[in-house]
């Protein structure tokens, strides 16, 4: 599989506050197909700011010059970094790159070994394109920068953003826009910054040079200090530290074994590793998960919501709490039209600055369910008391957009509102004619998209549960949820297709087949026969392909195979299909969908593509790693394949697995429930549960229930594969 640009998968190095994208030849250059064109995404990223574009090294001597990649001989990962080996003329070179958390950026080091017959003089040039703008401001590179030199190196500023560039050896030459620069201060357009070192390599000796770029917010620049000196002097130690933290995190997550499905077991490991790469704590006390790489590497709060459930199943309850806390900090307190914000609304994205923006119909709706999940996994005591106020504001925000008679929540119109708010004040005005801002935000799904209604129902249900049946807000939330469920069942059923309408607009159904209807099945809003009908219809070949589900039926007049939300295949939609199939009692269908995702993850380890063309299994306009493509997949493994539900306050565990009849066994070790951990071993209908926790664990299965004392294990009967339901063939 290749992308249209014919490029290989980039190498991604991350820390919690930084990222480096490079190619396997060692240079920080990574041309990738992007929205139909080729764009180089290589470079250094810090604090959700793209610090640089391509950053390249060149070698020169009296005989000529060469870019470093052209001398490449071998390469591969090193702890927390990437190492390449090169040979140029009679010199051996080792090049190492690591992402560094402090300063947030990168260090690269070049070690040059000389031949025995004499010394060699080499000129080493390091050259990069400055960017200095948040990653998510798409398509723009600032045009003007301020460059200054100091005892520590070069500092570049672009309004509120900046970077520091330094080396462990004094620069022999500096260049701006490929013209020599004596240092001092310069301001204006800046396409390239470069430095040169003159190096004499002794016979049989080695010389090492290291470069560092770090930055993000200008106010966080602080010159050379102990942390940056350490990173520059011992990048391998920084890399080892980052890898050690990754390993400790991985070791604390559950170990899943599926002897009957090694592809699924491997996919679990790959998806888990992908999720870890998205962990993000970029500064300003923000914690969360990046939406993806390369062009969505910021905290997008909808994307976060699809990853937090997986984070909880992996046992990192504290990270989930920090993440939701980071989002709640920016809950709208009053109307701010210029940012698209309303009171009670949660932001679309947050980044250090802090920079934040509102203007989606659905992001806010995810968070009541996430709070309920955090309480289930970690215990209600773990939930900050202030969150109750945030949840009440969410309820108020949602009700203000809701028809009280039908319970339907209105989506769409936010971008127009932002454009109107900014129209009269900006010298240059921009806009995207996006009329809707739900998950498929490049198409029109106004006014009452089915998945938004399912989400609203889940939010209302979680709020009602959280507030309690006697609460003055909890009661009406329950009532609204019931009305909404009734409306979905009566208004959205599309008899000709045995499916659900995609939306309702102007009192008419929007008759388009999209995978979003599957969310109503997962939410349990449809009776069994209707749910199974939806699963079967979604599996027809106009929507389903061997590489996953399209965003729109190929029979729809608006279908285009290269349109982001009107035809492309998205792994998240495939995960929805898997989830819904299990929920509807069609486990073999669910497993088949999971196998498709597993195959994609295995095809290019390290990737979890955002989307594929609708007419062939080729990533197109696709981030190479997206949280959407790993989070829901991981959650389905726990919630549907293992059929787990936990309640830390108790504690209790429900196990209702849907293992294929061919599976001999399965195990899940290290599942966190509150302050305890349990091990599950299943083989042919018997489940052994081991439990280490502060209180006895009550376990329920389809065949009964039992209680496991702390430090003990017990055995229960558990049917493995659910018997095929009448609708499953």
């Amino acid at each position, binding site marked *: 599989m290749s992308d249209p640009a014919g490029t290989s998968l980039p190498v991604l190095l991350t820390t919690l506050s930084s990222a480096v994208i490079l190619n396997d030849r060692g240079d920080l250059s990574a041309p990738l197909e992007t929205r*139909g064109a080729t764009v180089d995404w290589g470079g250094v990223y810090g604090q959700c700011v793209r610090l640089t574009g391509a950053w390249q090294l060149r070698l020169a001597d009296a005989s000529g010059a060469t870019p470093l990649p052209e001398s490449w001989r071998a390469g591969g990962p090193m702890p927390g970094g990437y190492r390449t080996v090169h040979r140029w003329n009679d010199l051996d070179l080792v090049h190492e790159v690591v992402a560094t958390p402090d300063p947030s950026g990168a260090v690269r080091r070049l070690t040059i070994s000389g031949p025995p017959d004499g010394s060699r003089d080499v000129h080493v040039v390091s050259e990069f394109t400055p960017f200095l703008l948040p990653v998510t401001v798409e398509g723009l*590179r600032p045009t003007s920068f301020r460059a200054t030199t100091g005892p520590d190196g070069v500092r570049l500023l672009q309004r509120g953003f900046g970077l520091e560039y330094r080396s462990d050896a004094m620069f022999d030459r500096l260049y701006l826009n490929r013209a020599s620069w004596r240092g001092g201060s310069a301001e204006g357009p800046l396409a390239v910054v470069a430095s040169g070192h003159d190096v004499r390599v002794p016979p049989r000796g080695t010389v090492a040079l290291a470069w560092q770029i770090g930055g993000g917010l200008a106010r966080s620049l602080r010159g050379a200090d102990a942390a940056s000196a350490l990173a520059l002097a011992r990048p391998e130690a920084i890399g080892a530290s980052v890898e050690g933290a990754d390993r400790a995190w991985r070791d604390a997550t559950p170990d899943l074994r599926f002897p009957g499905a090694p592809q699924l077991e491997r996919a679990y490991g790959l998806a888990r590793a992908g999720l870890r790469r998205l962990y993000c704590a970029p500064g300003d006390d923000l914690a969360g998960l990046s939406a993806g790489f390369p062009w969505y590497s910021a905290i997008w709060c909808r994307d976060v919501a699809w990853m937090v459930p997986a984070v909880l199943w992996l046992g990192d309850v504290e990270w989930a709490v920090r993440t939701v806390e980071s989002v709640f900090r920016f809950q709208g307190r009053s109307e701010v039209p210029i940012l698209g914000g309303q009171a009670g609304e949660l932001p679309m994205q947050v980044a250090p600055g802090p920079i934040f923006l509102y203007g989606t119909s659905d992001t806010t709706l995810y968070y009541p369910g996430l709070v309920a999940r955090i309480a289930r996994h970690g215990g209600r005591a773990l939930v900050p008391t202030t969150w109750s106020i945030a949840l009440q504001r969410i309820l108020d925000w949602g009700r203000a957009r809701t028809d009280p008679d039908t319970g339907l929540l209105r989506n769409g119109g936010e971008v127009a509102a932002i454009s109107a708010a900014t129209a009269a004040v900006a010298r240059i005005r921009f*806009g*995207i004619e996006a009329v809707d801002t739900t998950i498929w935000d490049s198409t029109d799904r106004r006014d009452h998209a089915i998945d938004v209604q399912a989400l609203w129902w889940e939010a209302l249900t979680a709020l009602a549960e959280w507030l309690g049946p006697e609460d003055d807000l909890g009661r009406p939330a329950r009532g609204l949820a019931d009305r909404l469920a009734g409306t979905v069942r009566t208004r959205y059923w599309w008899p000709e297709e045995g499916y659900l309408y995609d939306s309702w607009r102007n009192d008419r159904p929007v008759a388009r087949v999209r995978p979003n209807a599957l969310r109503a099945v997962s939410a349990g809003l449809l009776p069994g026969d209707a749910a199974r009908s939806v699963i079967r219809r979604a599996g027809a070949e106009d929507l389903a392909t061997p590489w996953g589900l399209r965003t729109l039926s190929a029979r729809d007049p608006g279908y285009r195979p290269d349109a*982001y939300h009107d035809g492309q295949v998205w792994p998240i939609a495939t995960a929805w299909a898997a989830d819904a199939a299990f929920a509807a009692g069609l486990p073999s269908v669910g497993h088949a969908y999971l196998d498709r995702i597993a195959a994609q993850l295995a095809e290019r380890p390290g990737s979890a593509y955002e989307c594929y063309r609708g007419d062939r299994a080729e990533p197109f306009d696709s981030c190479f790693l997206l949280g959407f493509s790993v989070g829901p997949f991981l959650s389905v493994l726990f919630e549907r394949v293992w059929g787990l539900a936990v309640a830390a306050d108790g504690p209790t565990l429900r196990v209702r697995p849907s293992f294929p009849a061919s599976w001999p066994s399965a195990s899940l070790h290290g599942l966190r429930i509150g302050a305890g951990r349990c091990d599950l071993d299943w083989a042919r209908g018997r489940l052994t549960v081991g439990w280490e926790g502060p209180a006895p664990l009550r376990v329920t299965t389809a065949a009964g229930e039992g209680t496991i004392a702390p430090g003990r294990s017990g055995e229960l009967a558990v049917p493995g594969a659910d018997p095929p339901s009448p609708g499953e063939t």
Partner: protein
Amino acid sequence: MSERRFGALLSLVRQGVTLGLDYGTHSLEVMLSVAETVEEAVLEPGSFVRTPGGLGFALANPPLRTGAFSSIRARVAGRAVPPEHVRLRGGAGEAWRRAADLSRTAPWTRGPGERTEFEIDLPSSPAGETTVRLEFECPAIPPLVWLEFTETPGERLP
């Protein structure tokens, strides 16, 4: 200043004060710096000029979207300009392409930091403040991206 613009500015001040109080002045400063960058990094300052046949200007970046554009439409003073009267190129020395010749198979491709020069032929060169609107269509993400500016065109150096 029109009443509408004055009202909008007052609203902006109110929203800025709210943000400053709620999230601190750091936040305001950084968000303002992003807004300024976006505003200044697209239309090249001083590039909007009268040409013998109409108007010319340059964009230093693609607006809001990177990628391949299958169509670029222009409106001047609210009137649509036929695409055969709109020319574009990357810079001096490159051949002009007509907007009418852009298509899904022959799009105009731009990455971050890549400029585009425009020339628009008009029946008569507008005098005074003129509003130009451009609409870009990227097949991969269909919603139109638009850019609009109102300036008085300068004279091109002979």
